[in-house]
């Protein structure tokens, strides 16, 4: 199949970017979207041009490193998928595809399609953990968790931190990402001791990183590769209000 690509090229954080046109012919529809970009880059290198920089690593939908806007949709048209798991069979022969980086104030562009998502790491660092040191944990069976609770916690813990939720949100909000971690921890007995401090610190860090507020459009859930539910955001709000009510960070 043949494709016309319009790709955002930007030399570095300071430079202005622009869309550049590329044509690719004779592609196999079983190719993944990233393999299509590999093919383009091979062509650019041989022709003496600089290849397009894009983020990727595992290419099996779990590391969360790939991500770009494809025809205005985070990770492209297929629901609940990462860019690496999107294949050309989802496009028509001869189609024009617009490819841009994730756009959000908290995710500055580094080069071409690569963005800086380290804000997510700082949110986790502010409280997205159980404070347990290595080596002397109690026997695992001493902390029973019902099957349903473990499954529910897993549904939240499955977030891959790709940033599609932020990129697709008109406010650039990190509410889905942050709330998924807060829910994961709040549901489990291990995480309950720090629940107040955790939610207050993580929400505060979201603001510091210049993420926008959630206005409940639910676009994040629609574009999330893992199908993380917006109910996590409701839980985060509940946890936040609960923490404010008790007005203490410790317990």
């Amino acid at each position, binding site marked *: 199949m043949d494709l016309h690509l319009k790709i955002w090229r930007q030399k570095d954080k300071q430079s202005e970017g622009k869309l550049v046109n590329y044509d690719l012919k004779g592609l196999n529809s079983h190719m993944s979207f990233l393999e299509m970009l590999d093919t383009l880059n091979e062509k650019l290198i041989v022709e003496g041009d600089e290849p397009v920089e894009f983020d990727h690593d595992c290419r099996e939908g779990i590391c969360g490193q790939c991500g770009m806007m494809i025809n205005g949709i985070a990770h492209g048209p297929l629901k609940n998928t990462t860019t690496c798991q999107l294949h050309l069979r989802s496009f028509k022969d001869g189609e024009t595809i617009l490819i841009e980086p994730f756009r959000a104030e908290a995710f500055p562009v580094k080069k071409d399609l690569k963005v800086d998502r380290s804000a997510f790491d700082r949110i986790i660092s502010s409280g997205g953990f159980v404070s347990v040191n290595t080596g002397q944990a109690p026997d695992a069976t001493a902390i029973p968790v019902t099957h349903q609770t473990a*499954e529910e916690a897993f549904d939240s813990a499955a977030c891959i931190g790709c940033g599609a939720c932020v990129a697709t949100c008109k406010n650039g909000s990190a509410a889905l990402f942050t709330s998924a971690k807060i829910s994961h921890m709040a549901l489990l007995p291990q995480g309950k001791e720090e629940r107040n401090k955790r939610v207050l610190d993580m929400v505060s860090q979201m603001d510091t990183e210049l993420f926008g507020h959630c206005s409940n459009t639910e676009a994040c859930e629609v574009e999330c590769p893992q199908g993380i539910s917006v109910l996590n955001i409701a839980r985060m709000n509940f946890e936040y209000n609960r923490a404010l009510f008790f007005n203490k960070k410790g317990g």
Partner: protein
Amino acid sequence: MILDSKIPQGPLEQKWAYYKKKAKLVNPANRKKLDVIVVGTGLAGSSIAASLGEMGYNVKAFCFQDSPRRAHSVAAQGGVNAAKNYKNDGDSVYRMFVDTLKGGDFRAREANVYRMAECSLNLIDQAVAQGVPFGREYGGYLNNRSFGGVQVSRTFYARGQTGQQLLLGAYQALMRQVGKGSVQLFSRHEMLDLVTIDGKARGIIVRNLDTGDIERHAAHTVILATGGYGKIYYLSTLAMGCNGSAIWRAHKKGALMASPSWIQVHPTSLPQSGDYQSKLTLMSESLRNDGRIWVPAKQDENRAPNDIPENERDYYLERRYPAFGNLAPRDISSRAAKERIDAGFGIGPLKNAVYLDFSKAIKEQGKDKIKEKYGNLFEMYLKITGYDAYKEPMMISPSAHFSMGGLWVDYELMTTVPGLFALGEANFADHGANRLGANSLLQASVDGYFIAPYTIANYLADEIHTGKISPDAPEFEQAENAVKNQIQDLMNIKGTKTVDYFHKTLGKLLYDYCGLARNEDGLKYAIQEIRKLKQEFYKDVRVSGQGNTMNAELEKAGRVADYFEIGELMCYDALTRNESCGAHFREEYQTPDGEAMRNDAEYQFISAWAWTGENGEPELVKEPLTFEEIQPTVRSYK
């Protein structure tokens, strides 16, 4: 050179306890005087960086990804082993030790394997305390499933994303320390050289992948937890960025490489569909709990799988290995698939796959139950192939997966360079030739959480009077200049072929001649061809862009330059081992019915290799293996 494995004295069950009792300690007040570098932030790297940060050392952690949470441990699907015996089916530390040693075809140290089984109990406790949502029974207790090569249920799992959840636990522990300031994080930094001063590891040279800047970092000890080099085959189950450069650069500075040719080939990945393909996606081995593997009974079968009646199917694993059936260990399952494919019974458009069929399990347990157990794997299969595995069997094929070779380490996980430690897949792996499923997450985790915190402290106890290591030392300058020169050399070639062309060509050579099966003529041929390809690379590669900016092509070029040398050593290693053993299958050494023929009389040792210079032949150093607790037996899964 004589390799000292430093196995502690005493009975097997008490060796680790004895070591811990005798290991030197560092006073909390002195820990902040000691600097530690950790390269890699997967399960082994994150857990050791977090552990040492908690203890009060100054830790710098480096990874090439944009976040430590992306490390390839994230992709491990099936589970992690621990001898908890929660199922009351007769499991124990001793039984896990025996299974693992046997699964590794008796090419591992008894003491190390026993310690791994022993520490497995703590790992599950640690992970649960961190909030890892393992699968649970309805009563609230932890659930288990069984994995290839064992007859008990000792595998703990978090659906098909166990690696992700364990990694997130370790990553969160790491980020907690980053928040506290005890660990400094350097993401998007790649180690390009090891710096040694007076024979000891004292620092690293890294390239900031965002800016292209070359930086020096000094420390009292350097820990490499950089994962494996299976991506050398280009097509593999590994992430695109996985590479062997850090351990290879350390090898060239004096660290011995052990068992480099022992690459585990995983039986259940998706088959290759075309030349453009960049990776082979793994489908968890746990699927073999409910899936039956078969090929058509007649060659060149063109009917759709559901049109082939039961009596015209060959369930070859059940036929050849009735005791273990579809749960036969990875090397056996992979080789059995290759044998059927090579004999003309392969299926799929390229006739390079076998079927993994869930129809019986769906009929017996219902689709919902199968969906609960493996739902995400079925969805992944649908996304990649476009086929619905609830309706027709999956197509699977063997592919390069886990490198059991790596830097040689002693019982303390220290390499032959004092002060340089290697953890997880970066070392040559305790469990030898062909580790069993769900042991790799375990090994990486226990290295980082429970072993290295003791052994590194034991080393650092003698370093408290050393004082700050200066990055201005001439050794740093020399290493930095060498790195800068290499980058300049690669940029200056300005040839006509891309880096990927060379990587793919090397990968195919290795797959054909040093892959699932090898022979003497093929290995000799491969060594010559790799040398020719390397020469061509240095004459004709084209690295676009600049050396001093973000440049993914330059990153790849440096890694492929190292792969030529690693590939050559893999072939040397395979050539010198005249036996078939675990992951290593030399075609000349097999029984009449095609099973591996081990040679304990001559090859019961670990092959460790020393670098002898750019054009020198690698030098083999042997570490003999002795078995006191159990005597090696022929491995039979029939």
